[in-house]
């Protein structure tokens, strides 16, 4: 009996030891954390990319690494201007609807294949193929025949091929790509720098449709090429010697961590494991800003933080009441004391970051502010609005926001300001993100937090959200005049007319106030002082192509 018990004790001890050994030896021990001497930049992508195939990518976790792996027909320079990318130049027809792109000669994919116009035609039609199920296929709807092909439910392959052939993108030869658009789209040269418009190597896609899932089969045409992809751990890319601008690329490579927690990423930056920290935790932003830290930067961001009103629900059916609410809050308190990242109070929808008709001034500067904060006027408007609605006082309502401490604190501040300035009782309703979106679509809310990050640098990215037919309006607000202005802007080839009607549309929107602008976002980030050459266009994450470690 005793011997048996001894054997069992030994077995337990052995198991414990085995587990300890497993624990200690179970990892690969050759990982290096700092690569400064090798000129490798360490950044954090925050999350695992859902896909690194340009047709399937759908958000910042995909687009940020993709920006460094691919180059579209055009790209953005450090000033945010559109400059030639894979195309050395392009011609635009007199009706502004046909673009002819001339590709640079001698461009190669990272596997040595030549980059051709056929690759672009193939890639764009691949995005539009309904079977690809690309989230961002609609970004190509500007092209003639694109929407019909993408929305087709045709089962007959021959008929589908016919629809694909009607998509007006055509490789005229190896180096010339012709695109015909539905309407004149002055920002089309920008759109083709967007990742959904990136080319893919036709031969690779046809021989291995899963090429983008593994670093060993990944082929790209940008400044870097993918060398390692450990899912949920990290991505590694090295300089692509086949890239046409390789002499300007100083980094040997970029390592991308995938740490979700902003605080954790910040601690990694502090511990020297990251060279660039973005995005930063809110309290850290305030701290760095007040300390005037040398490694702290605030870059512009083409996006707006706003509240939606449900204009189908009384008393938010009344524009005067909506305007009163918009006028009765102090945005500076919110930006200075809550958001703390150098954000600018917003008195219009379109953020700073898009050029106006003259190509120099910002759309926002030309348009200016559409309202002011004025408590007394807000009180008068509220009283008038309530009278018109047959009410004696403002009913209690909730601000709905999705789970994030910043949203909560802003909602608390706004509720407090409405209480103090207008005597309104406001409740707060925290919902999970998907639930919030679901309820917004169903117009099951009173006031809801929202925001919009632009896809491209044109006011249209904000303004067409609020047309009557937009799937994203979610306010119940419909205005024929507004729709007409947006339609004119979409069909006009004259930049002056386009910009004028977009200013008019924004004025209509701000007069009716179905949404209440709060602030224009910024992009605060920290980058080590020995890192140079990082730049941040307003509608993009920091671009590392020309970065260098000194």
């Amino acid at each position, binding site marked *: 009996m*005793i011997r048996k018990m001894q054997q*069992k004790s030994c077995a337990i001890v052995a198991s414990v030891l085995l*587990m*300890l050994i*497993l*624990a*200690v*030896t*179970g*990892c690969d*021990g*050759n*990982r290096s*954390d700092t690569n400064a001497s090798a000129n490798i930049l360490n950044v954090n992508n925050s999350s*695992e*990319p*859902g*896909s*690194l*195939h340009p047709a399937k990518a759908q958000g910042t976790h995909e687009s940020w690494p993709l920006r460094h792996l691919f180059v579209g027909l055009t790209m953005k320079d450090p000033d945010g201007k559109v400059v030639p990318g894979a195309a050395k130049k392009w011609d635009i027809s007199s009706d502004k609807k046909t673009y002819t792109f001339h590709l640079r000669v001698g461009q190669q994919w990272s596997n040595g294949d030549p980059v051709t116009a056929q690759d672009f035609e193939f890639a764009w039609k691949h995005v539009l193929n*309904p*079977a690809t*199920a690309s*989230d961002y*296929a*609609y970004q190509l709807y500007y092209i003639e025949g694109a*929407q019909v092909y*993408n*929305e087709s*439910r045709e089962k007959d392959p021959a008929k589908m091929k016919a629809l694909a052939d009607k998509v007006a993108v055509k490789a005229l030869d190896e180096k010339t790509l012709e695109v015909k658009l539905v309407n004149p789209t002055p920002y089309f040269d920008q759109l083709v720098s967007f990742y959904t418009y990136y080319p893919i190597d036709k031969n690779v896609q046809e021989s291995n449709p899963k090429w*983008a*899932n593994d670093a060993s089969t990944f082929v790209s045409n940008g400044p870097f090429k993918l060398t390692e992809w450990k*899912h*949920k*751990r*990290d991505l590694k890319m090295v300089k692509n010697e086949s890239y046409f601008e390789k002499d300007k690329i100083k980094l040997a490579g970029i390592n991308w*961590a*995938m*740490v*979700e*927690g902003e*605080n*954790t*990423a910040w*601690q*990694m930056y502090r*511990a020297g*494991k990251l060279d660039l920290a973005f995005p930063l935790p809110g309290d850290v932003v305030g701290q760095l800003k007040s300390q005037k830290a040398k490694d702290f930067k605030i870059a512009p961001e083409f996006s707006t933080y706003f509240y939606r009103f449900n204009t189908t629900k009384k008393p938010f059916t009344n524009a005067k009441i909506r305007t009163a609410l918009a006028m009765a809050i102090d945005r500076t308190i919110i930006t200075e004391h809550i958001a703390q990242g150098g954000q600018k109070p917003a008195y219009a929808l379109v953020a700073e970051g898009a050029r106006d008709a003259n190509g120099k001034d910002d759309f926002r500067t030309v348009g200016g502010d559409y309202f002011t904060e004025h408590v007394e006027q807000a009180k008068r408007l509220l009283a008038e609005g309530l009278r018109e609605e047959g009410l004696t006082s403002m009913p209690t309502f909730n601000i709905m926001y999705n789970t994030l401490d910043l949203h909560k604190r802003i909602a608390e501040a706004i509720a407090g300001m409405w209480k103090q300035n207008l005597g309104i009782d406001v409740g707060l309703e925290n919902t*999970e*993100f*998907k*639930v919030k*979106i*679901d309820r917004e*679509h169903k117009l099951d809310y009173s006031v809801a937090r*929202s*925001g*919009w990050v632009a896809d491209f640098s044109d006011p249209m990215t904000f303004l067409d959200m609020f047309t009557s037919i937009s*799937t*994203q309006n979610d306010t119940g607000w419909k205005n024929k005049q507004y729709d007409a202005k947006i339609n004119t802007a979409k069909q006009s080839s004259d930049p002056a007319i386009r910009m004028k009607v977009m200013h008019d549309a924004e004025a209509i929107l701000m007069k009716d106030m179905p949404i209440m602008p709060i602030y224009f976002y910024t992009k605060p980030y920290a980058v080590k002082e020995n890192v140079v050459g990082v730049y941040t266009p307003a509608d993009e994450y920091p671009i590392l192509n020309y970065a260098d470690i000194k």
Partner: protein
Amino acid sequence: MVRYTLQRLGWALLTLWVVITVTFTLMRLVPGDPFSSEGKMPPGVYENIKAYYHLDRPVVVQYVEYLRALLTFDFGPSLKSDSITVNDYIRDGFPVSLHLGLQALVIGVTFGIMFGVIAALYHNRWPDYVSMILAIIGMSIPNFILATVLIQYVAVEWGGLPPATWGTWQHTILPSVALALMPMAFIARLMRSSMLEVLRQDYIKTAKAKGLAQTIIIMKHTIRNAILPVVTMLGVIAANLITGSFVIEHIFGIPGMGEMFVKGIFNRDYPVILGSTVFYSAILIFLVLLVDLAYTWIDPRITVTGESK
């Protein structure tokens, strides 16, 4: 014993089926859609995506197809990631969570038992007080606070260990310690009270009267009997630890299963939610079964239903 094991396995499978069915139903009842976002997706694009993932088919068909795929251990695609399936998620994430969980379990059990035994043997003396104060602190401090403190002082200020991510054995130390704290405190308290009870038993007095050495009495008779309640809880503790702690994995940027589970829910990624639930349930059921079987091994007085005495 064989009959008992088979019977338990049958119940386990039935339980799993109930879990799958309930989870499948609940997922569809929760508001929100896997593809809804603040983006501008037109209806045509939305329909393409639904068709791609076969979500345009009737729910009953989806359910039957899911069960059929599950028979071949195919957990399906992730609706949020084109580059990775749920099987990949589990294959990549589970070893990491298992590694972290086992390490935390070893730390928690070893030190928990040690503190519990010391506390009981030195009942109402200073080692008892110290052990129990440590245990109370361990149970009171949430592991995310300890994790933050460890990162701040051990990783950033001292620079001795990496603050986050996964890769070398050094990366495993801080998260294991943070994760082990709560089970360690819990086991210490459980072990102490259990030991105190056993120490009062007649057979311990008999053993002492027989002149057995103190070490043998403690090792062979006291700990062996006192450890039973700890073993009872071990299944659940182990299942929790090895299937991943979302908070700890999130704070330390660890690519385990905990994060996958929670993100799956936020994203309404149906196959990920189902896959992780089924996988978690299977582990839990298996571990509980193991614990039940271990009972008979540790304490021969316990017999299983139907077994002849």
